[in-house]
């Protein structure tokens, strides 16, 4: 029997506000434990939450960017459970009437486009961090509440996803939007972007859902893919062996490459949600919403479409260039200075991305500017250097941020197009390879490349290939 997977994602994104969701403590990552806390986020007796306006604004940005309907009187609710990283014994979240509902995100997998529905986007506070003791301390856990109260949005997708590839594409698409909006760092290792998945399988063609499991702890795109692949396979096996999938939470264990049941740990949970009495419905005036809408940047999908239309790029290139807002900006600025979009695109997609990926950097953090790349490309066009030398120059420019013209001068990389200067070298090459000259003359004309290569070698690649070709053909004829 053929099976298909049905997947829905629950994504938590930490919002890049200065202060926490309900108090003025800093949201900075990586400080000494319990130094970014106050009576409010420590859950001391008698304290009350006061809502951070910017957190709502950021959440609204995401809602609008994904085409959600915004509830102008959404409500906060308490989610009640005991855990040492949850200082009040409840998390202030949203339950009935979330901030936004019914949106969508566009993904593309193997050239096929697809809409994935967004069920809801809501605001909530993060919990603190629990460190488990080791060795002599193994009987204890240690609680740091710096993170407690940092604003999060939870994005819940519809169960529209049918494969691990689509799940990865969905998470990537949402991440790209979050980055474009500059509302989340999306650092999965530091936990500023987290993803859980609801997974079930059913015989292909079936329309009802199978029993789902919730898979947690997938803190990278790779883990998301691996965990889903494993979990889908596991569920199919269970069914094929005549068993039943149990509704439960499972944890991805990356070291063993399996999902592990948390059975018994979740069963007893009854969150007893009820409206948060310390906060009133969240007011979102029409004017504010319009203002946010007006300030939204062009989003990745729109930008990619425009790149195809305006610059005549292939959709694939447009997708790569627009995945990062800064890269897209870099591209457009280069094109303004050097108006050959396809050439710029090729250089970015090969040379620039190669260097960036090697260092795992974003373009905005590198010393390369559009100016530098554009003047490098001009040097090639002007024939000052060859395309090949251009790559060498680029590496230096990327590394040092130096003007390419200066690099060319300093390293003596100016192209040799002077026929007289090259003539001697060509003759020398032919003289030292008489056998090849012989073969060439007998009709093996492909050897011209060999001779060009030899000339290039002697000139450290600086010879103008066009001139070399001409000289060789003259000399050999």
């Amino acid at each position, binding site marked *: 029997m053929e099976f298909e997977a049905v997947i829905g994602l629950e994504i938590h994104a930490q919002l890049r506000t200065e*202060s926490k969701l309900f108090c003025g403590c800093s949201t900075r990552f990586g400080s*000494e434990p319990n130094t*970014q806390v106050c009576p409010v986020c420590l859950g001391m007796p008698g304290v009350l939450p006061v809502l951070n306006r910017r957190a709502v604004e950021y959440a609204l940005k995401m809602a609008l960017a994904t085409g959600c309907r915004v509830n102008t009187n959404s409500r906060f609710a308490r989610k009640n459970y005991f855990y040492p990283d949850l200082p009040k014994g409840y998390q202030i979240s949203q339950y009935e009437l979330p901030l936004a509902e019914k949106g969508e995100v566009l993904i593309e997998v193997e050239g096929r486009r697809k809409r994935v529905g967004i069920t809801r986007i809501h605001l909530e506070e993060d919990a603190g961090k629990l460190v488990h003791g080791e060795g002599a301390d193994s009987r204890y856990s240690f609680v740091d509440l710096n993170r407690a109260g940092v604003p999060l949005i939870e994005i819940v997708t519809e169960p529209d996803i049918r494969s691990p590839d689509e799940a990865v594409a969905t998470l990537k698409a949402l991440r790209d939007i979050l980055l474009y909006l500059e509302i989340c760092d999306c650092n999965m290792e530091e936990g500023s972007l987290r993803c859980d998945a609801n997974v079930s399988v059913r015989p292909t063609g079936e329309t009802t859902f199978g029993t789902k499991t919730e898979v947690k702890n997938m803190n990278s795109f790779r883990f998301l893919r691996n965990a889903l692949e494993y979990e889908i396979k596991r569920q199919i096996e269970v069914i094929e062996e005549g068993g039943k999938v149990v509704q439960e939470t499972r944890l991805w264990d990356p070291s063993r490459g399996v999902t592990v049941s948390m059975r018994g740990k979740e069963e007893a949970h009854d969150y007893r949600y009820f409206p948060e009495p310390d906060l009133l419905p969240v007011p979102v005036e029409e004017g504010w919403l319009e203002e946010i809408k007006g300030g939204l940047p062009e989003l990745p999908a729109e930008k990619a479409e425009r790149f195809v239309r305006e610059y005549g790029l292939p959709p694939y290139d447009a997708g790569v260039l627009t995945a990062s807002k800064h890269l897209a900006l870099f591209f457009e600025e280069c094109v303004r200075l050097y108006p050959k979009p396809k050439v710029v695109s090729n250089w970015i997609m090969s040379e620039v991305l190669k260097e960036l990926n090697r260092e795992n950097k974003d373009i905005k953090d590198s010393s390369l500017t559009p100016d530098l790349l554009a003047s490098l490309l001009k040097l090639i066009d002007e024939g000052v250097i060859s395309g090949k030398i251009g790559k060498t120059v680029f590496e230096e420019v990327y590394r040092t941020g130096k003007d390419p013209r200066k690099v060319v001068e300093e390293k003596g990389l100016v192209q040799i197009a002077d026929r007289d200067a090259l003539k001697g070298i060509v003759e020398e090459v032919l003289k030292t390879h008489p056998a090849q000259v012989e073969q060439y003359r007998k009709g093996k004309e492909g050897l011209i490349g060999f001779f060009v290569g030899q000339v290039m070698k002697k000139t450290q690649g600086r010879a103008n290939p066009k001139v070399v070709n001409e000289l060789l053909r003259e000399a050999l004829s």
Partner: protein
Amino acid sequence: MGITREEVRHVAFLARLELTPEEEELYSEQLARIIDYMEKLKELDTTGIGPTTHPIPTPNPYREDKVQPSIPQEEALRNAPDKERGFFKVPRIIGEG
């Protein structure tokens, strides 16, 4: 309707209260009477009546996103029953869930 002994035990677990058998007995009895009394509300037809969760509704105020000074670590931990190296210290989570 009332409340069963099993439910009392479950509710006590949700509320993280370890009741003695005597307490369990007493609360079963008392809660049953109290909940019985609450059944009175079922006399009322509340179809279409919205809930009141705030007696005096006002627009929720916003705070501007400005960092205010936190309290020193020492002060944050001053009242803690157990602490170590700047952390609150708790027994490990075994049998928790």
